[in-house]
């Protein structure tokens, strides 16, 4: 079965890659299998790991049932009404619950982690020192770079004031920092995409064709 599985995986891989030459029925077929299997995979996993393990065994068949979970199951079933246009409006209730819960949690955690702690890290300990108290000049230069970059970057994103004069210059410096950031992200993105392809080639060449170890 293992050898059969490797052959299936290899043929599916080549079927997807056939798109690189041009769109063709083989690619469309493998794409359809991809969509169907992915949806089925997620449905099975979520059923057994959540609906069954958490709700069914936690609230229905448990010796010590948690009756509160019936609320979640009711909301979940209401979500499925979206499939029927006449009663689809009911699905707004569980959607509203999810949106509200997420908004409430995000309002606080984004403030604490992404705003407060990041601002504190930017403006505190600008002069870097070692354990003996001596100034580390290169690290201090680095923290100054971060301070200037964060402030000018935030100035750039402030659109309530026209970017003119000193403000405009600061915004321009901000765009330079942002361009360096995007360039670094681009470099890393190339690395990531190539890694995905390297992984597939390694599978084809070692597991399937045994050209390499």
């Amino acid at each position, binding site marked *: 079965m293992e050898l059969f599985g490797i052959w299936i995986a290899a043929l599916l891989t080549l079927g997807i890659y056939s798109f690189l030459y041009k769109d063709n029925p083989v690619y469309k077929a493998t794409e359809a299998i*991809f969509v*169907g*299997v992915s949806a089925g995979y997620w449905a099975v996993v979520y059923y057994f790991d959540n609906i069954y393990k958490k709700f069914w065994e936690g609230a229905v068949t448990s010796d010590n049932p948690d009756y509160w979970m019936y609320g979640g199951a009711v909301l979940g079933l209401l979500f499925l009404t979206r499939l029927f246009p006449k009663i689809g409006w009911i699905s707004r209730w569980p959607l509203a619950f999810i949106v509200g819960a997420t908004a409430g949690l995000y309002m606080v955690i984004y403030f604490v982690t992404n705003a407060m702690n990041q601002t504190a890290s930017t403006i505190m300990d600008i002069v870097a020192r070692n354990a003996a108290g001596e100034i580390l000049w290169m690290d201090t230069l680095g923290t100054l770079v971060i301070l200037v970059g964060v402030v000018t970057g935030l100035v750039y994103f402030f659109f309530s004031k026209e970017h003119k004069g000193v403000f405009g210059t600061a915004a321009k410096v901000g765009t330079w920092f942002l361009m360096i950031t995007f360039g670094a992200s681009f470099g890393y993105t190339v690395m990531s*995409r190539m890694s995905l392809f390297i992984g*597939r080639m390694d599978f084809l060449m070692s597991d399937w064709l045994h050209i390499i170890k």
Partner: protein
Amino acid sequence: MRREIPILITSVAGLVFAVSYFIPHFPFGESESIFGDWVTIVQAFAIWLGALNLIKVSWEKISRKKADWPFALLIVISLVATLLIGFIDGYRGLNAEPQYSFRDPGTSFDWLFRHVYTALTSTMFSMLAFFVGSASYRAFRARNLQATLLLIAGFFVMGGRVPLLDQMIAPIWDYPFFSHLADWIMTFPNTAGQRAIMIGIALGVMSSSLRIILGIERSHVGGGTR
């Protein structure tokens, strides 16, 4: 009432999670735990909604013999086959002695994951490698100062994070200069830019979350903004 009740649900859920961060005691802590359970269960049903909707849309395509309907049939067959394999393995495992999971090594579902799902998803995303190479050749031009800065930063990060540029200069200077340069770019200017974006996004998320909890933003319940 069709809109008022969902807005009330949104506000109550939002307030519970926001307040319980600071007051983890009764009733907020307990409410947070209960609502957290509800979120996990509702998310599972949301995935099932997606799967059932996919079947519904595909079946419509098949029954009306629209363009590419055979591929829609293939979608439905693949989905149903995966569900069947998963449920058969799952319930067999639950009724076995000792019990085993639907995805334990050796099950058909695990075989499907390792040889079909992994191959398809990995290959689909790996095609991006080709498109990023093609885009680099066709589109990335140093047209102005900003684009030049972007390309220079990208060049040094790409060449420095793997030992490409260091190996090229190694015969002359055996010091990982470009690796340290790439590290410096990531640690300082990249951090600065990412932090500015992060703080900006955080402020936006805070304000839009507050608007949602206060019922000012109603797009998720079919209204606009009050």
